[in-house]
Structure formats: structure tokens, C-alpha cells
């Protein structure tokens, strides 16, 4: 625990990426193997099950600090982090300990079966034995949100530095649904012939967005391939050892949620891995994302929903063929092999190629991009014909060329403080459009402003609060923001009757007053045109 706290401090005390990587690498060299595995698990989003509810933690922390619960609750949004708030209010420890991370995690997991009195005693005991930084790390373990400024990519780079292994190889080793219980440091990181995990996916290749200058600078059009950028769930379909597995980009196993692919092991030769997009489909085109969204949260899909929003996988790429990793081969070759594989798939199968978009000039392509919204695509993907399938986000070979977003001018009506890095700043806003003399809320937005703009609006919100509803402040309707979004859907759950996709603040319209904001009527016109 001390080592992890030291790592946390080292990472926390620098803004230089290299210094963070060095600190992580040093940790991976020095910490006991069982602690290392847990640390890798934590930094790649694998957390121990939450044994204690946060409401109990708040009560116990307030009690231990000798303050009323309401005062703790008032302090929390200002600190912006529950684990940190608890660590800050607790009195200094009176004892100490020498136990490592995995020991503490073992203790936490033992609490799964314990009664509340035992849980409380164990937590208070831990708090009383840990200095502040360890407490913070410990609280993050219990509360589950182990986000401490170390991305998975950064961790993988540090692992590469500590072990002398290739970053891409390590990224692949860390994929899949292993847990610190199912593996060891040696198996996970070092074993030359890792125990074959037939479900393990490859790291997804990701793209950067093209800037406003467009694709001209990319060179000759014939060196590139274009595809529609679909608005679904990026997925990896694996057929190995007679079984199939479907992974999301967030490394969630979605196999059971999409029974449409149950035949994949029969359609595909053994040892096939396909990268594609899961979409809800109707006739010859995708349904809006909202249709797919209904299926995301459901482990078991009712028959009616299967009929209403049937899923297909539009395949982009082939990563493994005949059990051989072909990611290093050029895209053109992989794509040809993909088409060959898919040609043998039954016609009614929920698996088909995502069509290439043929073009001769960038101007042609720009015109085609203009039709993306009508095809329910978000824009285009540009991939260099000779590019390998990279692990992660690499600049240069793959680009997203998204549609310009839709925009609407809206009035700020509610504000709430952010969390974490944005604690103490008002960053979470609700916006309204005009309907006669009324203002109808229709969307929230959290991003798009600069730090300076967030500071400015925060000052303003503090002085112009009309009413408070818990942490939410109603403000004088005065400021107009341009809200950019990617799509618009009908929604019965919202008063305005619409739901936006990826709304954000694209511009602060200092030039407009609330009376000049757009109307609900205009919003409904957009729904009719683009919904």
C-alpha cells in the first residue's frame, strides 16, 4: 500500500508524461508481483467488487470526523471526489501498518460476506492505520472509481519500459476478461507462450479527427480508402475453437446481448477476428443510435426488441485469418481477405461488409461526405491503403472525417459544479429554447468551453443564482450558447420531445441575448429534417 501511495504521489506531483511513466515503471520493477497484477488490473478498469456502499462510507467518515453528515455532504461537491473528501476530513491516524495492496484488497473482499458492524469496524481500522495519501488510495479502492490520472496507454508504456517487452504486445496481453484471481504476473506479462485465451481480443485501432483543412494534405486520393463512419458500437467478433465472442471497444464482452451472431462460429472459418460496427438495422439501412441504445443495457433481450431493433455487424477489417495475426499486413490486403471470408457467409447472416466508398478526388469525397447524415452515418473514415492495423490511437494512417455538427442557440438556465479536475467550477449546464414567453429545457452540456470561459461563467453563476435545488442552481436566463450536436431524436422522456446526441457548447454567443435564442419550433423542424 505504501508503494502504491508513493506511486500515486509521484504521478500526482508532476505534469510531465515521462516522469509519470518513469514512476510507474519503477513501481512495476519494485513492487511484489501480486501487487503489480492488481495495479495493472486497477489501471485497466478492473476493480474489486464494491463491498460497501458510499452512503455508509460517508456516514462513517462524518462520524469519525465528529461532524454532522450534512456538513460532509456539503463539502463533497466542493472537493469533487468522495475518496478525497473522506481522506481530508478524517483525523490523523493513531496506528500504522505494513501491508501491501493485495493484502488490503483481500481484506476488502472478505467483507463481502461480513455484516455491517464488521464492515464498519474494518474500514475504521484501516482509516486509523493509514497516512492521508494511503487513505485516499484505499478509499478509491472501496469506492470503485480508480481514476488517478494514469491512462491505460500510459501504464502500458511503463510496463514496456519495466519489462523490456513491446508496448503493442503488452496491450494485447492485457485485453480480455482476466482478473487478478485468474492470472499471475508471470502468465499475464512474462510467459513466452501465454496460456491460450481463445476469447482474447486485439487492441482496437483508433483514429484521430481530421481538422477543418480537410483531407487535401493527406496526399494522393488513390493511396487512401474511404468508409462510412457508422454511429453504432465498435465491436470485435472472434471465432475461435468452435465458439464466438463479441467485444466492445470498452472491452466488454457483449456476446450474450446480441444473439444475432450466435451462428458466427459456423459462418466463419476457425481463427477469424473481425473489426466492425454493431448497428440496429432495418431493411437496407441502419436505425438511429437510440434504437441500438435500448439493447445496450440489456443482458437478455426480449423477442419483441429483437424484432424491433435487430443488430448487424458491418465489418471494416480482418485482424486474424486461419488463426494467424495479420494486423501487420497492409489494409488493402486485409480488406481483400475480409471480402473473401464474408463472401462465404450466408446471405441472411447478421454480418456483412461495410461498403467502401469509391472516389477519385478529394472533391468527390467531400460531396459524398455531405450525404452521410441521410445515410445515418457520422461522416467518413479515411484509411491509408497500405496501413497496418495499429494498436490504439496513432496519428497518420487513419482519420475520421466527421460531418459538421448541427447547431442551435440556447439559453443557459441551470448550472451545477463539476467533479474532479472541474470541482469548484460550474461546468454542467442545462439549456433551454424559447417557446412563446417560456423557456423549455432540452439538453445538458458539459464541454466545449475553455478553462477561462468556465471561470468566467462560474463567477457569473455565483452572482446570478435565482434559486437552488440541492447542488443545482437556477440562473437568470441571460447567456446564449451555441450547442453543437451530432444527431437529434424524438424522445418522450424529455419535456422538449427531443434528445440530442453528443451535445456540447461550441460557442458562447456574447452577441446574443436570451430573447434571440432559437425556439422550440426550430428544434422540432430540425427533428423533422434530421431525426
Amino acid at each position, binding site marked *: 500500500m505504501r508503494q502504491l501511495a508513493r506511486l500515486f504521489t509521484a504521478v500526482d506531483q508532476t505534469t510531465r508524461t515521462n516522469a509519470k511513466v518513469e514512476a510507474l515503471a519503477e513501481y512495476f520493477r519494485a513492487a511484489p508481483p501480486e501487487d503489480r497484477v492488481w495495479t495493472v488490473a486497477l489501471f485497466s478498469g478492473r476493480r474489486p467488487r464494491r463491498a460497501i456502499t458510499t452512503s455508509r462510507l460517508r456516514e462513517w467518515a462524518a462520524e469519525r470526523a465528529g*461532524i454532522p453528515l450534512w*456538513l460532509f455532504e456539503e*463539502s463533497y461537491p466542493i472537493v469533487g471526489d468522495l475518496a*478525497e473528501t473522506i481522506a481530508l476530513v478524517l483525523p490523523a491516524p493513531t496506528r500504522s501498518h505494513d501491508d501491501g495492496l493485495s493484502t488490503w484488497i483481500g481484506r476488502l473482499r472478505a467483507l463481502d460476506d461480513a455484516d455491517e458492524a464488521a464492515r464498519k469496524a474494518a474500514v475504521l481500522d484501516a482509516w486509523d492505520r493509514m497516512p492521508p495519501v494511503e487513505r485516499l488510495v484505499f478509499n478509491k479502492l472501496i469506492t470503485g472509481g480508480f481514476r488517478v490520472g494514469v491512462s491505460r496507454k500510459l501504464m502500458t508504456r511503463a510496463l514496456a519500459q519495466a519489462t523490456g517487452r513491446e508496448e503493442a504486445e503488452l496491450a494485447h496481453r492485457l485485453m480480455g476478461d482476466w482478473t487478478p484471481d485468474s492470472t499471475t504476473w508471470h502468465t499475464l506479462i512474462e510467459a513466452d507462450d501465454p496460456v491460450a485465451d481463445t476469447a482474447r481480443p486485439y487492441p482496437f485501432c483508433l483514429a484521430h479527427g481530421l481538422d477543418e483543412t480537410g483531407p487535401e494534405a493527406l496526399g494522393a486520393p488513390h493511396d487512401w480508402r474511404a468508409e462510412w463512419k457508422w454511429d453504432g458500437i465498435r465491436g470485435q467478433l472472434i471465432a475461435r475453437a468452435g465458439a464466438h465472442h463479441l467485444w466492445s471497444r470498452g472491452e466488454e464482452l457483449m456476446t450474450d446481448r446480441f444473439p444475432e451472431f450466435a451462428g458466427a462460429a459456423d459462418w466463419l472459418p476457425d481463427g477469424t477476428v473481425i473489426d466492425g460496427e454493431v448497428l440496429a438495422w432495418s431493411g437496407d439501412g441502419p436505425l438511429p443510435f437510440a434504437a441500438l441504445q435500448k439493447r445496450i443495457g440489456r443482458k437478455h433481450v426480449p423477442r419483441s426488441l429483437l424484432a424491433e431493433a435487430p443488430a448487424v455487424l458491418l465489418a471494416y477489417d480482418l485482424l486474424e485469418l486461419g488463426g494467424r495475426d495479420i494486423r501487420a499486413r497492409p489494409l488493402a490486403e486485409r480488406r481483400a481477405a475480409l471480402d473473401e471470408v464474408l463472401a462465404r457467409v450466408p446471405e441472411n447472416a447478421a454480418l456483412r461488409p461495410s461498403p467502401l466508398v469509391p472516389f477519385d478526388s478529394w472533391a468527390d469525397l467531400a460531396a459524398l461526405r455531405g450525404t452521410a447524415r441521410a445515410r445515418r452515418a457520422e461522416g467518413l473514415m479515411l484509411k491509408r491503403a497500405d496501413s497496418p492495423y495499429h494498436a490504439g490511437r496513432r496519428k497518420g494512417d487513419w482519420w475520421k472525417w466527421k460531418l459538421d455538427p448541427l447547431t442551435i442557440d440556447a439559453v443557459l438556465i441551470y448550472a451545477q459544479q463539476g467533479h*474532479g479536475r472541474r*470541482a469548484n467550477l460550474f461546468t454542467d449546464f442545462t439549456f433551454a429554447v424559447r417557446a412563446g414567453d417560456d423557456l423549455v429545457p432540452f439538453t445538458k452540456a458539459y464541454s466545449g468551453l475553455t478553462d477561462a470561459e468556465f471561470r468566467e461563467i462560474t463567477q457569473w453563476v455565483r452572482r446570478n443564482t435565482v434559486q437552488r435545488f440541492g447542488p443545482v442552481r437556477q440562473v437568470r436566463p441571460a447567456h446564449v450558447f451555441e450547442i453543437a450536436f451530432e444527431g437529434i431524436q424524438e424522445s418522450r422522456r424529455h419535456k422538449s420531445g427531443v434528445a440530442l446526441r453528443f451535445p456540447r457548447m461550441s460557442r458562447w454567443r456574447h452577441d446574443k441575448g436570451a430573447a434571440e435564442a432559437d425556439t422550440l419550433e426550430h428544434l422540432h423542424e430540425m427533428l423533422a429534417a434530421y431525426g
Partner: protein
Amino acid sequence: MVLEFTQRGIYCPAGDFFVDPWQPVDRAVITHGHADHARPGHARYLATDDAAPVMRHRLGEITLDTVAYGEVRRIGGARVSLHPAGHVPGSAQVRVEVGGEVWVVSGDYKLEADALSAPFEPLRCHHFVSECTFGLPVFDWPPQAGVAAEINAWWAANAAAGRFSLLGAYALGKAQRVLSLLDTSIGPVLTHGAVENTNAVLRAQGLALPDTVPVTPGTRRQDHPGALVLAPPGAFSTGWARRFRPASTGVASGWMCLRGVRRRRGVDRGFVISDHADWAGLNRAIAETGAQSVHVTHGYTEIFARWLTSRGYDARIVPTEFTGETLDEGAPPAGSAPP
């Protein structure tokens, strides 16, 4: 009432004067030289002897009367005296007594003694007008000596690695306090103009500060290897700091005890050092006044007033234009630019 809370500031009808008013008035009693307390435009000022030089430096030609700490002035029907607040050099609490009723306006204050400001003096009173910039139980200042050791260790490590140490601290008070904590055997200390101007004023009134080298347009980085550069926090976001590279950055402020605030500033290190009272300090100071009635002026006023009420005080929030220790504005509240 001995003191009233008006649109222009805290007003004493018996003496016809204001304490730290934010609009121009005829007679202003000033607690200390920070910009949200000592504003320009008043006809007559009263402050402590120690606060006077900085106020003259910042406000220019003003009609300023001064008193020693504890010296009683009769103003109309009020007995007025200024007592150490421990906030910055020269800072004072204002004690006002009318007909046996005593009110104390704290201005800004802190309880831990530093080597520069006269230490905070608890005053018995009936009504206490208190700041509560850090009025939440999450604010718990570590002892100054420990923070000093952290700053010096950071500086030494940077110097050894060939990096400059850029440390943000407000020009009046915080910068000098940090300066007094530095182990100058590590390397030279360079100062931003806003800090150096205030240094000069305070040195002239007899404050002992370590030697500093003012940064000028001609300052060359290679002449000052391993230097610590002391500047108002706002200076880091300007081109001014660009010449000192490579560098590690830090900010000295009570807000630095919150990780979110520290990360938003984008600095490497946050040093928790404040010229305001922390949670325990506020509670102790209020208890020691013996006052039953507490008026909170700035900070987490709503939460703190509710807390005081739950502890049996008659606590009220009074709206003022004081800002306390702010980071978000980016601009230091005092002495950032010469007048």
C-alpha cells in the same frame, strides 16, 4: 447597532466611518492592504503603522492616518483600535466599542504565527464579523515547517536536475512568507516585478527578507542556474515565464490541498500554505472571542453559518465584496502591478 452592513460597506453610525468599504466614503478604517479590502477613492484612511507603506505604494497619494497595534482612537462616539490579525504584515482586526458593546471585524486572519506578521490576537467581543474563506472541515493546514521542508526539497531536486523552480505566490504577504521559508543555500531567488516591488516596500519598513534578484528584460537564464523564481500565480500563463525552461511549476495556496484545484491549475506541485485560518482555526478564533453573535462575510458563508448555528451561535451571513484567497481569477488580489 454598533456596526451596520450597508451597500457601501460595514458602517459604524456612532463614529460615521466604514471598515474596508468597497465604495468611496469619507472615512475608511482599513484592515490590510489587499485590493479587496483597501480600495482607492476614500477621502480619509486609517490603518496600522505597519500597513501604511504598502497602502501608500498601492494607492498612491492618500490621506492616511496611522495607529500602532492596540492604540485606541476615539472616532465620534466610538472607541476604535486595531489588533494583529496574523494575515499579512500590518494586517489588523478592527475593534469598535460603543457604549460598552464591543464588535470586532476580523478582516482576513490566520492563527499560525509566521515570522513576518504580528501574531493573531484573540479579542473578546459581543459581535464578531469573521471571514470564512476556508470554512469547511476539509481544510486542515499542515504546520508551516513541514511545508517549508517540502518546498526546499522540491527546489533542491529541481536544481540538481537542471530545472528552474517556478513558484506562484501572491505579491503581498504570501510571497514574502514563502521567501522567509526558503533555504537560500540551494540557489538564487529571482523575483517578478510585482513581488519585488512589495519586497522593497517591506524591506524599507525593516522586515528582514533574504536577498532576491529582480527579473528584468535583460535577465539571462544561464546566469541563474538552479534558481527559484517567485511570481504571482497569474504570471505563469503569460510569456514572462517562458524564459525559465526547463522548469517545474508550483503554487503556494490553501486551495492546493484540493487535488481538483491543483490539477486544474496544471502545476506540478501544490504547497498548502495559506494566510487564512483553516477549519480548526476559524472555530478556535470564534470560540475565543466569547461572542454569541457571528457575522460571516466571505468564503463558504452559507455552510459555515449553518454550522455555527448548529453549535448554538447566532450566526448570520452578511454580503460583502471581499474575495479572500482566490485562484480562479488568475490575477493576484494585491500588488500585482505597481500603481
